[in-house]
């Protein structure tokens, strides 16, 4: 019940804040700084959700909800992901465009399903399998291009980003098999958009 109350409260706050005007408006601290939608990247066919930006605008942290339909995945999978990206440089371009040429980040995903474990059942001896199948940590590098815009008298930003990433199980496979595996074998691409409420 508390969850629903929080959700309703959040929606009310969002609609309330939408009525505010002026470029210097302060949003409540708990309202997200941006929304993201991501394609691929081992956290769903599509994933999306809110995120927060650090004060100096270099570190963003997102909570993404991802879905992989049976049609594209061979199994329908729901994943939640906590993801942090560090983009140290911002280069302004003409017409309020900018690029963030380099990003580096890490994530931890959790995939739901009875076939996935966070803790192995008691019928396995301790340490029989050393990894949890529900949690997957990963890392990536990437970049973005963005544009600042003013919509309805409010500052907004759009960004397109790409990320090249891998995750723990592939990385350890690569490290132990550098003869057969190439880095490209364990790397995959994801693409996304970010809508920022600056």
């Amino acid at each position, binding site marked *: 019940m508390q969850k629903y109350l929080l959700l309703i409260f959040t929606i009310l706050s969002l609609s309330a804040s939408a009525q505010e005007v002026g470029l210097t408006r302060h949003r409540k601290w708990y309202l997200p700084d941006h929304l993201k939608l991501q*394609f*691929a*990247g*081992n*956290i*769903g*066919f599509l994933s999306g959700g809110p995120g927060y930006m650090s004060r100096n605008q270099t570190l963003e942290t997102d909570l993404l909800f991802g879905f*992989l339909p049976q049609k*594209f*995945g*061979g*199994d329908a*999978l729901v*994943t939640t992901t906590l993801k942090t990206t560090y983009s140290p440089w911002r280069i302004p371009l003409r017409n309020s465009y900018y690029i963030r040429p380099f990003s580096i980040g890490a994530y931890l995903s959790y*995939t739901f*399903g009875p*076939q*996935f474990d966070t803790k192995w*059942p008691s*019928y*396995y001896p301790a340490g029989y*399998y050393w*990894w949890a*199948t529900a949690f*997957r940590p990963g890392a990536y590098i990437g970049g973005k291009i963005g544009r600042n815009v003013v919509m309805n008298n409010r500052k907004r930003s759009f960004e397109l980003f790409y990320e090249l990433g891998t*995750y723990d*199980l*592939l990385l*350890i*496979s690569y490290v*132990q*098999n*550098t*003869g*057969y*595996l190439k880095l*490209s*074998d364990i790397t*995959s*691409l*994801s693409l996304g958009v970010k809508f920022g409420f600056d």
Partner: protein
Amino acid sequence: MALALTLSSCDHLFQFNPNQVIFKDSEKNLTAKNLEKLRAIPVGDTLRFILMGDSQRWYDESADFVRSANRQQGISFVLHAGDISDFGLTQEFKWVNEIMTGLKFPYLTVIGNHDIVANGSAAYRKMYGALNYSFEYGDNKFIFIDTNSREYAFDGKVPDIAWLKSQLADNPGKKNAIVVAHVPPFDADFDKNLENAYTGALANDPNVRFSLYGHQHRFYDGEFYDDGVHYYLTNSMGGRGYLIITTWKGGQKVERIEF
């Protein structure tokens, strides 16, 4: 855009989940496809084949195995004794299949405990086919059975003793019956409550002289139950070993090969 098109021709460019179960058509239904290839190979009174296993996360070594196996003479096919993958990931199955397709011979598999982890069973079914299956070739009937009892919480249903007995009974030609599985019956991962029924089924069948396994990552063999059935375990790919088995009506020879 041109770059994106070039990149997207690569089938693993976009990955949606480590546990996705997506295969190309050429990577599906491989048991049936490889049996078809095998049936095209003529068979004499004596059959020579390779038993290897436990390729899990040993891709470099598995590639070396393929080079070594391709130098062997008179081999009809290769049996993979399970633990094809380490994490039950579709990507791992694909890599091992890519390596094994470098063999000059068709290969067949039995499922290992690591192949059942997460979505592994679904990946195995899609890529290879049934977990329990059999085929006849020359004077031999090969029976592949899932013995990874621990993965099913020792529920008393794995291995499927009734299916094993029916496969052994359905042998009108009295061919050599060769049971192939991943976990040997004396291993702690095999259901203790089914051990006697399983070994008894093999011992009570006059067509069974030996049975083949992986799992323990070592060469090991013996007539462990003093019942006339010889059990052979092959080494892992990490252990850089495999067996060459020669079988004929009434006898077998087993050689240990290190590479």
